[in-house]
């Protein structure tokens, strides 16, 4: 990596952190817009986890929403029924969700391709049914309402409810941290290993990469991000039901990664920024969202497998190569002329 590249990358990260703070402040006057921004941030965190699983390791997991739901329900129960502090309940339930994610991800060690996708979809459906059928923890289909916001202890002011722009800034920084963690992993040796697993896991095994270990690790980290996102989603929105974490939500998290550009850092963020606000903008016709998302799933699969950002990168690379080739041709031509 050249120093110009690393300077650009540092600028991008600083810009990202600045945006995570600046955007919530900019829309703070408009609660509706601010809420959409907050939800986009939670989705960026979720898609960061999904990107690690699907984009970089090639595991098309369709149970991501279920894992997020486990984080959300456990946190909510610990806070509302057992009087735990959110700041204790959230990490505990996120680690719990990550552990469950590892266990439910075990089929991935045996099953390849379509069979793994199917098994994760089956697990997602079962998790949703469990949410519906243990109403003592989840209040069934009705869902849990009036989930309290977390409280903060400020010096001199005591316990203060976290709300307004401060909450959105926190979500923004979380999303930033989640994407940052995925970026660091991808840049490390582990990143090279998981991408080798994505390209061909049998070959990776032959080359001496401990495929089982890295798949388990990826499930743990990805599920941890999902669990944290779920815990914050519950307390931010104040309402959760089994529908908040069902099959379609998993499918849509997949769509945001695939539409933006799997296996790129910026792609899933772009996917979230474009797709998450749609149901809010549609207002009363929010059900149109399902039709629109469904059409996009088909369009992405059939026509744009690299996603918006991935396609942009491919085009730019092709342009650069063309420019280099053109330069080379003209240099040769000049040499020929000079030689004559």
């Amino acid at each position: 990596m050249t120093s110009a590249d690393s300077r650009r990358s540092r600028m991008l990260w600083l810009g990202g952190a600045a945006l995570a703070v600046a955007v919530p402040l900019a829309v703070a006057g408009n609660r509706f817009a601010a809420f959409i921004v907050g939800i986009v941030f939670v989705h960026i965190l979720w898609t960061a986890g999904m990107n690690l699983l699907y984009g970089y390791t090639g595991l098309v997991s369709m149970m991501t929403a279920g894992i997020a739901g486990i984080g959300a329900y456990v946190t909510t129960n610990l806070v509302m029924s057992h009087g735990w502090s959110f700041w204790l309940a959230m990490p505990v339930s996120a680690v719990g969700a990550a552990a469950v994610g590892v266990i439910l991800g075990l089929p991935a060690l045996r099953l390849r391709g379509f069979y793994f996708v199917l098994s994760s979809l089956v697990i997602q459906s079962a998790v949703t049914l469990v949410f519906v059928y243990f109403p003592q923890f989840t209040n069934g289909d009705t869902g849990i309402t009036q989930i309290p916001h977390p409280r903060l202890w400020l010096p001199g002011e005591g316990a203060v409810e976290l709300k307004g722009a401060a909450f959105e800034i926190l979500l923004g920084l979380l999303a930033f941290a989640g994407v940052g963690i995925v970026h660091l992993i991808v840049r490390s040796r582990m990143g090279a290993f998981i991408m080798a697993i994505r390209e061909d896991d049998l070959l990776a095994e032959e080359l001496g990469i401990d495929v089982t270990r890295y798949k388990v690790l990826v499930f743990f980290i990805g599920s941890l991000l999902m669990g944290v996102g779920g815990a914050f989603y519950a307390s931010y929105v104040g309402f959760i039901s089994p529908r908040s974490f069902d099959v379609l939500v998993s499918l849509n998290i997949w769509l945001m990664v695939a539409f933006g550009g799997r296996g790129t850092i910026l792609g899933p963020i772009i996917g979230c920024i474009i797709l998450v606000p749609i149901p809010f903008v549609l207002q009363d016709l929010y059900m149109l969202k399902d039709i629109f998302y469904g059409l996009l799933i088909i369009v992405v699969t059939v026509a744009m497998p690299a996603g918006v950002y991935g396609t942009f990168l491919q085009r730019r690379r092709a342009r650069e190569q063309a420019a280099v080739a053109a330069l080379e041709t003209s240099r040769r031509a000049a040499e020929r002329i000079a030689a004559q």
Partner: protein
Amino acid sequence: MAMDPNLLVGISMVTTGLVLGAIFALTAAGVTIVYGCIWLPNAASGQLFLLAPLVLWSFTIGFGIEPVLAALLVLAAGLPLAYLVERLLIRRFYDVPDRNISYFVITLGITQILSGIFSLTWGRWSDQYNVPPLAAGVTFIGPFPLPTNRILALGCALTLLAALFLALRYHRFGRALRAVFQNREAAALRGVDVRRVYLGSFLLGTSVIFAGGLLYSMAYSFDLSVAWSMGIAAFAIMIVGGPGSVLGALVVGMLFGFVQAVVSVFASPTVATLSYLLAMLLILLLRPSGLFAR
């Protein structure tokens, strides 16, 4: 004549099991034929299963068309629809090695589109749908009264199953289909037009799913949640029976029908759905080729 209530419950369990089993088997056969032939795991099978009776409901209740005619119209309208889907979305992947993942995702997209359409349209018109019966009245089998319509649905389902089974075994197209199941290249070398067989199997599979939905609506009233439970059941039957195995779909479909009938009496249908999911997961982990692997 006083009848033992336990006996009545038992009889109703057996008939429900038969009717559900036959419909499950038929629908799963439609899914498994398409998977065996073109490697397309149809995640939208449940929504397609629901689409047919919803349209039938509109035709009969909304436009007052005769039930038999309306059912035939629905089946006829399904063919160009399936052809369009094959032409636009499915054909382009025929030579892609990992196409079953792409197909799975595409049909999940179709699932989301259809469920959005359903909740925007039929979901606003009614909660529960009752299609007018083809045959009214009650038939006594021995001392047991059964709705004639349900017996008719059972008869139709069993006839269709038998026809499907015989056609796959003896008809020219059925033999070509099974040849493609077993070995695409060898079949092509022996002069089978593989792409035509692909198209044919997709049209056949989709029509069979539509027929399953129509028969279900003859036997029972239904609501929009049927799509998810039926989709899960059809997939579970296909995986447990062995993807591509029509015999597996028949046997496991009948079995699951009885499971559903029994479980619905003692617990809720959701417990049945949960048990299908677990059965599917176990088979995936222990014996991915299914119980009736070809």
